[in-house]
């Protein structure tokens, strides 16, 4: 597929700890097409950020290691590239926006300079040209009086404005892929909407593909073309926005959607949380990571890890309930029932 810009194949990332290796990402597969937005959803500790950072290879070498799998950008393996090749790609081809705009800018450097630094690193521009670009970027992300703001320090901006600066910085060299790691989590709701709107807008102009990492399903619904749901270091379900929201197949996805409070529900309706807590990655063995919390477990769930079951539309689920080898014998009635009730 020539349309695919980034492929992650069977990615395994391990942290080296005092008690041995702890595998935080345990076989992640996904593809990113040009210009699309892929949302990666999951709770804290599910491996979203680690996956994102390993694409950019921003994880500390001393404590982390890609133990298996590969990442291809335009057909080339990022993991096999030299350090110089990777730093050449960072910021120019693949960029990243981080969670907390309060801490992701250097507090003692003028914001204009911070944008110029990246531009001058990747493009052969004079200082004046780089400054011009920085100014254009600030205007593009909607910072008023951009001219005078270039020489301001990060602490002179509000949180929302800072995130705009971070986005300007990330997009300054016109990257093909933007990885946004919870870009709105640290912002208040009205600012969140503005930032998301801005990102959508800029995506139309620049045709950048976005990997949006979030745990906010509202953000996903607003932004994504496709959705990947992560749990316990794996993508458990992946499909188009509509498939995930209207036809979720994995009990975890279902649980996530159900646990969202709804405005049109009667007051006093109790929330429907997913029972239990996320798995301890250190003790996770064979079997489905969600088995301990799943309301539909079967014996097989505890002993064998489910494989991806893929439909013709590309909707994939890693769940024994959807596996044709199991489905014949298992009593699906219960799941079908509960699935219907939530998607009506």
């Amino acid at each position: 597929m020539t349309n695919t810009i980034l492929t992650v194949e069977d990615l395994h990332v391990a942290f080296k700890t005092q008690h041995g290796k702890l595998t935080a990402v345990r076989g992640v597969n996904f593809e990113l097409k040009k210009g699309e937005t892929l949302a990666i959803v999951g709770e804290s500790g599910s491996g979203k950020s680690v996956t994102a950072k390993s694409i950019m290879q921003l994880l500390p070498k001393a404590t982390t290691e890609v133990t298996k799998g590969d990442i291809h950008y335009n057909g080339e393996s990022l993991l096999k590239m030299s350090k110089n090749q990777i730093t050449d790609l960072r910021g120019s081809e693949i960029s990243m926006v981080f969670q907390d705009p309060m801490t992701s800018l250097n507090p003692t450097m003028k914001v204009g300079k911070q944008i110029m630094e990246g531009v001058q690193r990747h493009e052969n521009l004079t200082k004046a040209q780089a400054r011009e670009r920085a100014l254009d970027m600030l205007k593009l992300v909607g910072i008023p009086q951009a001219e005078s703001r270039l020489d301001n320090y990060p602490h002179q901006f509000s949180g929302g404005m800072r995130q705009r600066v971070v986005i300007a910085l990330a997009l300054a060299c016109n990257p093909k892929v933007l990885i946004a790691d919870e870009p709105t989590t640290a912002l208040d709701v009205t600012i969140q909407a503005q930032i998301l709107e801005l990102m959508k807008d800029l995506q139309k102009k620049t045709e950048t593909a976005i990997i949006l990492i979030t745990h906010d399903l509202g953000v996903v619904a607003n932004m994504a073309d496709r959705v990947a749901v992560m749990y316990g270091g794996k993508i458990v379900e992946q499909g188009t926005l509509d498939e995930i929201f209207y036809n979720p197949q994995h009990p975890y996805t279902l649980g996530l959607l159900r646990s969202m409070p709804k405005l049109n529900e009667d007051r006093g309706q109790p929330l429907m949380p997913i029972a239990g807590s996320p798995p301890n990655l250190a003790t996770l063995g064979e079997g489905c990571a969600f088995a301990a919390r799943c309301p539909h477990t079967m014996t097989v769930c505890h002993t064998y890890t489910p494989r991806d079951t893929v439909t013709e539309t590309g909707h994939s689920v890693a769940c024994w309930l959807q596996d044709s080898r199991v489905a014949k014998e298992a009593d699906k009635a219960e799941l079908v029932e509960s699935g219907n009730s939530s998607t009506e």
Partner: protein
Amino acid sequence: MTRYLLQRIGFMLITLFIIVTATFFLMQLLPGTPFTNPEKLTDSQLAILNAKYGLDQPVAMQYIQYIGNLLQGDLGYSFQHEGRTVTSMISDRIGPSAFIGLQALVFGAVVGLLLGIVSALKHNSILDYGSVTLAVLGMSIPSFVFAALLQYYVGVKLGWLPVALWEGYSSTLLPSIALSVTVTATVARFIRSEMLEVIGQDYIITARAKGLKENQVMVKHVIRNALIPVVTMLGPLAVSIMTGTLVIEKIFAVPGLGEQFTLSILVLDYSVIMGITIFYSALFIFVVFVVDIIYSLLDPRINYKGGAA
């Protein structure tokens, strides 16, 4: 800013006034007077001397007189050296002290920064452990112990540098090195921990994500940000050097201000004790003030314009 500066200068003067007052009365508590010790003076001779230097007045009167003179910039005459002003004694002696002190500060800062930066860059390596161990030793062993060790090994055994006295540039090296040990250790430890903290900050990941080369990230983002708090250390370090010189100058027989100070305390040269105390205090207060100003210039987040400062 002007308002802030005026306020600061006001506080500095108040601080100095308190130091002068406290020292003046504490000094009077020392047993004896300047003229009781060495010479066998008759009562009438003593009375003449006391009258000449105003020691026959009540302490309160002496104090008021001293403050009056001080306000006119007059530190008075030495009680022990006939006809010499305290000001001239300080200016005669300040040269060697300032030279040794500044040289120690430069040695300490340069070596300390190098050790600390290497330590942080090679975190958890043998280099790191080595320089941390050195730093802990440097901080916990007093400088006069190093002074004695240096004199014995470098001066006597190896004979590379003069053991003591003040004869040309080579004589300045051992005292400066002995003095700089604490500075080196403090700076090394401080810059190391600051750098490790900065390396863990989000904006360093941002810098890497921009595609900056590792040495650009280190120099422009890590070291620059880690250096700012190190500037605040300069104040306390300047003090440690000032107090260090008192002992070090004695050990190496350097004709500096510190040596003069210890001597004047031994012979109860009241006006010289006061003069040097005021000089040291004023210098220290000024250094702290300058450090604060430099800090505000280096760190854009600190701004003295607002009333909050």
